[in-house]
């Protein structure tokens, strides 16, 4: 096998991007977009791994290498970009602004693939920034009001995250005197630098409360862009964290607790907010928040118990790979459903999607179950105080995912057909689905994993809850109000003041007071009121004058008050 030069991994999409700038070449080159990540895929699968490359002339001296951690990341990332690129070509065949989208797509791809092989902080940061900023174009595709709002929120969070990451990397580099990325996990890096780097990466990871951009962006972007956002780019944040945090080398209980709190909040919040969404892609986005929180929980456990990291690391990695494929496949499936009319074909599609959903929820004999089992076993090594929480969190995550999946499928089943969606958008989805379903045989240790009956509990419970909710909704005619997009941010959105509501004529007045008798028309008879006053005054005076003053006769029958007109 030819040794693949590693620089080709980021260079392939970049070169394609440069070529695309020539308008005459575009029609021919567009078809190459799905092929741009193939060198990266080849590099990931190559055995032995490609040799490191040093480019001293570039920036501070760029070094590219494929570490053991990065290798699986590179593999699934490349595969996802390829599949998403394929679907993007089909889906956006006639869309206005397609070329701009493809350019952003390629730039983001460059960044995403490049940051996985970058070994120095300058390159890492540059690739990371390229990915983040180029994704803005992916979110904005279409240019509707939702896209503009999502884009504004996304770029705000992205720039803030970039700044934090840059500040953290600079601080770290200044403190250690090194530009290697690996040095950022060293013991002499100040805590502030680690915190800043982590913050920047956690924004990308979508950890609560830095997740606000995520549901907006995922819901607004086209489906293939959502697929790479959720499948590949969120994982870039995870990869960054796994690189810069001192995992397995130092115990940071405080940081671990903080990270765990964020993760737990995400696990609770994701299903709660996701279930009330009215759009399938938004529901899937919330499910991503939940799953990423689960991975963050693994990282937190690793921070708390360095000894457990050798087991935890692969488990988190496994979870990431599994989630990347499954979630990307789900996102890719959305346009496939749109292209069909409700009927047998759609039912078949939904059934296939349901399989993916079950895998994501961790049904036995799927990649989800393998990942979850691995994580569960790894967590055994976590400190004792964590055990209680972790078990519950795992269960909550499974239950929440299952519920969200049901909700997403429910919404997809109801989705109207979009006739301008080509039928062949389903092909990339089929590829992704096939990969997910074949995963138990592809993944290490997959075949050995015995199905655990306990894994059936969360999906079962979720199904029962969903049925109960359905019954409740049907019998009482309750409806759910879709919340404003963007949760808290929605409140700050400046909505134009609505025009005054057209008033219906008030209902006919039917008096019920002393003044007005029914059937007598609306003519008030104020003298009746005066007569009542007169009568009450006279009666009260009589009562007071004649009744002997004594101790209050509370339960005694008091004198009658008369005088009603």
């Amino acid at each position, binding site marked *: 096998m030819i040794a693949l030069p590693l620089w080709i991994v980021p260079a392939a999409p970049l070169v394609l991007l440069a070529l695309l700038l020539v308008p005459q070449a575009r029609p021919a080159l567009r078809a190459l977009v799905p092929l741009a990540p193939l060198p990266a895929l080849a590099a990931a699968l190559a055995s032995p791994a490609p040799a490191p490359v040093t480019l001293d002339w570039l920036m501070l001296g760029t070094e590219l290498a494929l570490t053991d951690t990065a290798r699986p990341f590179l593999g699934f990332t490349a595969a996802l970009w390829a599949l998403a690129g394929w679907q993007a070509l089909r889906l956006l065949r006639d869309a206005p602004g397609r070329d701009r989208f493809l350019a952003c797509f390629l730039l983001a791809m460059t960044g995403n693939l490049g940051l996985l092989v970058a070994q120095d902080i300058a390159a890492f940061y540059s690739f990371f920034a390229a990915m983040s900023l180029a994704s803005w174009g992916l979110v904005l595709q279409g240019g509707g009001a939702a896209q503009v709002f999502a884009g504004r929120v996304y770029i705000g969070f992205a720039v803030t995250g970039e700044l934090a990451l840059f500040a953290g990397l600079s601080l770290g580099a200044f403190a250690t005197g090194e530009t290697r990325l690996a040095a950022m996990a060293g013991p002499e890096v100040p805590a502030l630098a680690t915190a800043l780097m982590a913050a920047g990466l956690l924004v990308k990871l979508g950890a609560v409360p830095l997740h606000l951009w995520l549901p907006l962006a995922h819901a607004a972007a086209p489906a293939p862009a959502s697929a790479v956002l959720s499948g590949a780019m969120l994982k870039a944040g995870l990869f960054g964290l796994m690189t810069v945090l001192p995992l397995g080398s130092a115990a940071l209980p405080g940081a671990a607790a903080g990270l765990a709190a964020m993760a737990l909040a995400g696990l609770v919040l994701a299903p709660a907010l996701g279930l009330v969404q009215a759009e399938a892609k938004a529901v899937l986005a919330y499910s991503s928040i939940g799953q990423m929180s689960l991975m963050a929980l693994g990282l937190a456990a690793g921070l708390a118990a360095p000894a457990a990291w050798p087991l935890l690391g692969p488990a988190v990695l496994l979870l990431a790979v599994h989630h990347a494929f499954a979630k990307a496949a789900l996102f890719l499936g959305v346009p496939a459903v749109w292209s069909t009319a409700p009927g047998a074909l759609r039912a078949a599609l939904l059934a296939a999607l349901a399989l993916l959903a079950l895998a994501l929820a961790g049904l036995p004999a799927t990649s989800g179950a393998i990942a979850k089992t691995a994580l569960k076993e790894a967590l055994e090594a976590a400190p004792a105080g964590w055990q209680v929480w972790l078990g519950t969190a795992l269960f909550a995550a499974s239950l929440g995912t299952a519920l969200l999946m049901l909700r997403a499928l429910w919404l997809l089943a109801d989705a109207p057909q979009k006739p301008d969606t080509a039928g062949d958008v389903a092909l990339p989805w089929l590829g992704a689905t096939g990969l997910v379903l074949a995963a138990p045989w592809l993944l290490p240790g997959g075949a050995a994993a015995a199905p655990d009956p306990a894994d059936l509990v969360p999906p079962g419970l979720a199904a029962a809850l969903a049925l109960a909710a359905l019954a409740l909704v049907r019998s009482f005619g309750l409806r759910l109000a879709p919340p404003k997009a963007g949760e808290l941010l929605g409140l700050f959105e400046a909505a134009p003041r609505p025009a005054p509501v057209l008033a219906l004529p008030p209902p006919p007045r039917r008096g019920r007071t002393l003044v007005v008798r029914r059937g007598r028309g609306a003519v008030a008879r104020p*003298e*009746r009121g005066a*007569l009542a006053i*007169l*009568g009450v*005054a*006279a009666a009260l*005076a009589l009562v007071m*004058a004649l009744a002997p003053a004594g101790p209050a006769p509370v339960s005694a029958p008091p004198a009658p008050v008369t*005088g009603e*007109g």
Partner: protein
Amino acid sequence: MSPVVLFDAALALGVLGCAALALTLRDRTGTVAAFMLTGLLVALSWLRLGAPDVALAEAAIGAGLTGALFLRGARRLGPLRARPPAPAQAAAAALGAAVLSAALLWAFATAPAESLYPPRVAAALEDSGVSNPVTAVLLNFRAWDTLLEIAVLVVALLLVMTLSPPRVIPDKLGALVQPFARIVVPVAVLVAGHLLWQGAEAPGGAFQAGAVLAGAGLALVLGGVRVDRRVLRRALTALALAGLAVFTLAALASQAVTGALLGYPDGQAKAWIIAIEGALTLSIAATLCLLFTGYGRRSAR
């Protein structure tokens, strides 16, 4: 004293008779005339009851100004269109009213009538700054009541401003009214000033003076002086609001000086009272005028 008793009895019968006429006549103008006559007779009877301050106020405000208001309303509301009450209702009303008024007569006639006030007023009159006991009560001993009473006037004015009923545009009364107004207005201003000044020791004071001034103002209005000029109306409104403002600020200032709300400094009580009364007179006159002329943009007849 038999002729006096006879006079009293005749007066009381006259009051009752006029009031009954006012409340039963079907002709609007007739009822208002009867009402004004009732007011004048009542004022007379209050002179007999030893209350000249009140009699002055009743004649000016109760009979005069209220009567003018009723006249305005009688023109605008049109003829009476009341349905006769059901016999049972009329009977019940008559019975209730008779019982209540009999009970009241009994209660008031047999009440011990041992007021705690006269000795206390007599004892405190020296310190009050004025020698007319009614003025002393109104502007010193119970000045808080008076302040709130001015507030009632202001709130009524606010209400009228908000409602803005049709503005008064007088008929052309011809050549007679203007000479009349020419004589009445200066005289009324003089009388008002006199009433205000002598209120300190004799019957009179801010309310009576204000009412007389208001009467002069109404004479001007009816004589054809147009009060719908925006500037004039604004000035009058400002004047009307200023009375309460001055009184309230004076109350707070007195507390800042002496420590007691509305407690005038020793020896300066008369100056404070005259100053407040002066402001009140102008303000009351302006308020009463505005209450009569109204704020509306439309005009009626």
